[in-house]
């Protein structure tokens, strides 16, 4: 995988690092350039972090050969994260508009 240098789990955690950084940069951008307050930002941040955790869980489950654990992770971790992030995004959109 990846030039035969990195294992799947190493690539996964590198990608998670990139995603987490982008999340924080995006949240900062909303706060400082659009003056979005902590209250509407909080659900968006929580939802995105839950989704990142879900990606970590799901991909790890596939990597260890347990796809059912991966699909369950999608349902019980990723989907709630998506719902919370969507609710947060609506609030942020209303404030930033």
């Amino acid at each position: 995988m990846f030039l035969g240098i990195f294992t799947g789990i190493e690539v996964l955690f590198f990608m998670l690092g990139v995603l987490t950084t982008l999340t924080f940069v995006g949240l900062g951008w909303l706060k400082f350039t659009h003056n979005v307050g902590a209250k509407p930002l909080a659900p968006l941040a929580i939802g995105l972090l839950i989704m990142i955790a879900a990606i970590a869980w799901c991909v790890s489950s596939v990597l260890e050969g347990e796809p059912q654990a991966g699909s369950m992770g999608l349902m019980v971790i990723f989907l709630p994260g998506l719902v919370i992030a969507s609710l947060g995004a609506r609030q942020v959109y209303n404030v930033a508009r």
Partner: protein
Amino acid sequence: MSDLNNQSETPASPSGINRRGLLKLGAFGGLASAATALASTAPAKAMATGAASTEESNAHLFTEHDDFPYVVANDYERYHQERTAFSYFHKNQLWVYPNPDMTKPGFTMEDIALSIGAWDLNDRLNSYSSNSGYDLGLYNWNNPVAPEKHQFASKEHAANVIKRAARHYGASLVGITHQDDRWDYASFFDGVKNETKTWADFPFKPKTVIALAIESDYEGMATTPSLVADAVTAEGYARMSYVAYALSSFLRNLGYNAVASGNDLGMSVPYAIAAGIGDSSRMGLLVTYNYGPRVRLMKVYTDLEFVEYDKPKTFGVREFCERCKRCADACPSKAISQEDKMSLYPHEGHDASTNNVGVEKWWTDSKKCLQYWNDSNTNCGTCITACPYNKPDFWQHRMIEKMNSLMPGPLHTFMREMDIWFGFGDTFDEKAVARFWDPKGRKYDGRG
């Protein structure tokens, strides 16, 4: 499976004579494809580093005990090797195997050969010691000892050196404890020679017992009950002996008497608990923090005394087992207790003739267990596969494990259910056999 008393832990080969000679929900779109691409790296390579890296940060999860953490009755009587279910089956010539259905996954000619290959190796190293006898193969009692005793700088240094050497030879877990009459067989029994010996015949008086565990292959154990899982058991038996033998030789070269021991000499599970490498469980096997019950146990008896001893450590297995019962539900012979709590003595109606009575535990019926081995033509091990503590060494399981240790009892039932929903611990899973043999994602020529 075998209980806290007799045998070591995982199903052993029921016969010294090589009996084998007879013979998830899937669609998750883009994420799944990304994951599958990542998965092309062999899972074993993707796994995180071993036990040592997590040791420090896990310290708060363990409770250290000054004494053996389970009650031992005042009227406790020492156990004799002759009372094990293996001896019972030998004496009564109960090892009778039906021909396997060779069309079934896990019982084909390739699976049979895989199992025979591993048992053959073990039998050459240790003869029939996996289920009877003593002083056999690498577990022999008489080996040369260096004439001069090496003086260690400190007890701590001695313990560190021994543990590093054990790791070097292949042990996954190591603990050091005092020799304890309660856990040593009062007498040894060789069911093949029909011969009995006692500690008076042993070449020295042991002072210390080094308890060792080696991990068994997760993928292979996922196939229980099958001959693929048998091959894992047998290969484990072979490895047990050479790891323990190498460590005993290391000590002998430092001038101390030392003898390697598998299932002979004493009971491995209580020794392993006393040495702090795991906890007692409903199924009677040792449950370890890193590998759950998916380990094989062995020990080294030595007269070295100048060493720092470990303390027993528990991490909530007892509380989890009280609500879990997954092994008892999965056991095809119903050999594992469904009682909620451990007890000091067997409950009414339990056949305790092969049990070590007077130690707090859940009671298993080893005769029923071994009869199922006969009937299924395997060493079963289904209870190990079903156990929620049996997980690959991946970060998410270490996280769940920490949560389990910190959570109150009622949530354990929820965790057990989630474990089932997430697809872990499936037994009698024919797809697991296909996964074991599947070449996809494996490169055998050094390219991956």
